[in-house]
């Protein structure tokens, strides 16, 4: 058999399998029951506008707090890990290994309950605020490694040129190394951001006041009160409404930054 004929044959089989699977799913599903249970327009309508004005808004706010906090703390940890001072390196390494090794849910739970007791201190935002601290702690451990890799990916000559011009180590870091490092790590940092958006759903473990509810908790409450799965579907769509434009925006930024490479 000729090579090209064989290739066409393989492709043909792949198409047939694909169509068969789609047909099986469509035909075997009970659309009569799925529609009212998952795509119930009356239930959907009852969720608005609160699901946007409270739940989606809170998801966005929690994401921003956790991401900004995670980047700042992650930057500090990355610099500590690259520090010539040995105890700083130990501390940063220990921190990163610890919090990357624990489930985020456990850390959030721990901070939400243990922090107010251990420090006799109620963080702003109540238990949700305490949970957010846990989320910042977890995300910073991942982000620290990303930033460290970015800093190390900037060619050594950049540091040498900057220092030769008389820039101090701090100014070299701020004006020469970090801007290039952040350009390099834009794709993995976007990844972290999308993960954080989804991880805000873990904050429920801290317990939430009604006004603090984010998308997942809101949808779960909707599920319970209406005995209908439509709230979950709407929440899922809203997550995508948040994440998709964001990944598009970052992809655009990345193309723009290529100019300065």
């Amino acid at each position, binding site marked *: 058999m000729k090579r090209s004929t064989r290739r066409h044959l393989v492709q043909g089989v792949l198409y047939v399998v694909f169509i068969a699977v789609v047909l099986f799913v469509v035909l075997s599903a009970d659309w009569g029951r799925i529609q009212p249970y998952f795509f119930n327009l009356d239930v959907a309508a009852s969720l608005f506008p609160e699901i946007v004005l409270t739940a989606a808004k809170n998801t966005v706010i929690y994401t921003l707090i956790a991401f900004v906090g995670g980047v700042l703390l992650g930057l500090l940890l990355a610099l500590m890990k690259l520090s010539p001072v040995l105890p700083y390196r130990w501390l940063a390494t220990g921190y990163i290994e610890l919090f990357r090794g624990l489930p985020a849910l456990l850390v959030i739970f721990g901070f939400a309950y243990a922090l107010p007791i251990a420090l006799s201190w109620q963080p702003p935002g109540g238990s949700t605020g305490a949970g957010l601290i846990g989320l910042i702690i977890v995300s910073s451990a991942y982000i620290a490694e990303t930033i460290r890799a970015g800093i190390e990916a900037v*060619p050594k*000559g*950049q540091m*040498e*040129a*900057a*220092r*030769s*011009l*008389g*820039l*101090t180590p701090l*100014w070299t870091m701020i*004006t*020469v190394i970090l*801007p*290039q490092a952040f*350009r390099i790590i834009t794709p993995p940092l976007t990844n972290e951001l999308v993960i954080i958006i989804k991880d805000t759903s873990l904050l429920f473990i801290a317990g939430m006041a009604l006004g603090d509810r984010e998308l997942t908790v809101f949808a779960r409450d909707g599920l319970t009160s209406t005995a209908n799965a439509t709230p979950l579907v709407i929440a899922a769509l809203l997550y995508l409404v948040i994440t998709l434009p964001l990944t598009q925006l970052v992809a655009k930024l990345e193309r723009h930054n290529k*100019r*300065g*490479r």
Partner: protein
Amino acid sequence: MIPVSHTASEETGRGPTAAAPAIEVRELCKTFGTNAVLKGIDFHVDQGEVVCVIGPSGSGKSTLLRCVNRLEEPTSGTIVVEGIDITDSETDLDAVRTRIGIVFQQFNLFPHLTVLQNLTLAQRRAKKRGKREAAEVARKNLEKVGLSEKADAFPTQLSGGQQQRVAIARALSMDPDMMLFDEPTSALDPELVGDVLEVMKQLAREGMTMMVVTHEMGFAREVGDRVVFMDGGVVVEQGVPEDVLGNPQHERTQLFLSKVL
């Protein structure tokens, strides 16, 4: 301070003869691990003098240059720049570095900044010049290297030769007392070498103190006040270009020159 008995600048009548040497290196040793790269170098550059350092690769000439502003940490020995001992831990290295311009083989322009920003960054942060003054100095130096129209371009939009001329302008914008060139044309396509050498010749004519590590024997012969031949981590031979290049005394110098000329 050890008086310098013989200088080429006295013979050529270039530069002030009574002043302290711009660079004075005594008994300099540098080892990387077990690899001794510099084995007791005595070396000086007088004010206004152009010294070309030649030698086979691995002879330690780049390491010597990099030690002069302590990009490499000397293992032992003293390096005195304009009367300031830079191997002394009390010396403000950043301040000394603003007086030593360095041009690297790989240009090391800051890729995230425009040409103008490359030239103003250190002026503003290390020399504390105002925005306007820094830009003025930058434009003056861009004009000097013939690249005024490239002020708003990014480094990646320039040819190698243009990038190296920008790098020279960047170093000049700090108003250095001396310029060190580390194989400035070795990374360039042959047809781009001429423009860079022309800028360097212009600098030499203006009386700039220069230390040039180079493989361009034509440049060394034409522009150098003195040629220093290094091999195996020691200074083998030095003197005016006609002697060292035209009538070398040492076998190693003869061997090297027979290969490159």
